[in-house]
């Protein structure tokens, strides 16, 4: 699964993207974000406040109860600030 990070999520975590193996048991966005927090202290800190972590699956904004699958492109980013 391809994970993309934007804006301060990218700078806090320190990488623009990573490819992860989706663990069994992770079936929705909320589960994915919780699991990503365990990958490093930087992940944990960046993803601590889910209010400011928005998620898109396959380039569509989705809520935390949206399902995720191994072939999805998942992007995590702060609330957009517009142009």
């Amino acid at each position, binding site marked *: 699964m391809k994970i993309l990070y*934007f804006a301060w999520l*990218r700078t806090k975590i320190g990488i623009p993207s990573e490819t992860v193996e989706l663990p069994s048991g992770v079936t929705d966005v909320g589960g994915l974000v919780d699991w990503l927090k365990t990958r490093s202290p930087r992940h944990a800190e960046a993803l601590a406040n889910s209010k400011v972590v928005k998620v898109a699956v396959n*380039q*569509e904004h989705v809520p935390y109860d949206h399902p995720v699958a191994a072939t999805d492109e998942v992007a995590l*980013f702060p*609330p*957009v*600030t*517009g*142009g």
Partner: protein
Amino acid sequence: MTVKVQREDFDVGAELAAMTAGRTSIGGVTLFVGLVRDMAGGEAVSAMTLEHYPGMTEKQLEAIEAEARGRWPLDDVLIIHRHGRLEPGDQIVLVATASAHRQAAFDGCHFLIDWLKTKAPFWKLEATPAGERWVEAKESDDEAASRWARDA
């Protein structure tokens, strides 16, 4: 019906000419050009870097452009949005709406820029005397966009 997300600057006069050339049913074009200001939130800004999500940004801009065309009788719509590092005075965004009638051109353009300024998937990094900071989403912008909400 054109959406461009690009690093390069744009030429408003050339874009307008291309939009209207030979199309004599157009009565007017409303344009909005957004520029980088030297101040934000009371602080001096020496540069702004716009980050976006390539692919998703274009998709969302195309969707909102289609919505504007559905809501108002527009002969043409152009959206150009830059990304990357910009300095005060630089052009950020151009929205142009052409219509037989000026009210439609105004409403369509205003709707699009309110959306772009609030909902478009861009993130701003501002360079200030205190260092670089990521801009947070503003309440007032959400209000501007919400006035376009359709009645249920």
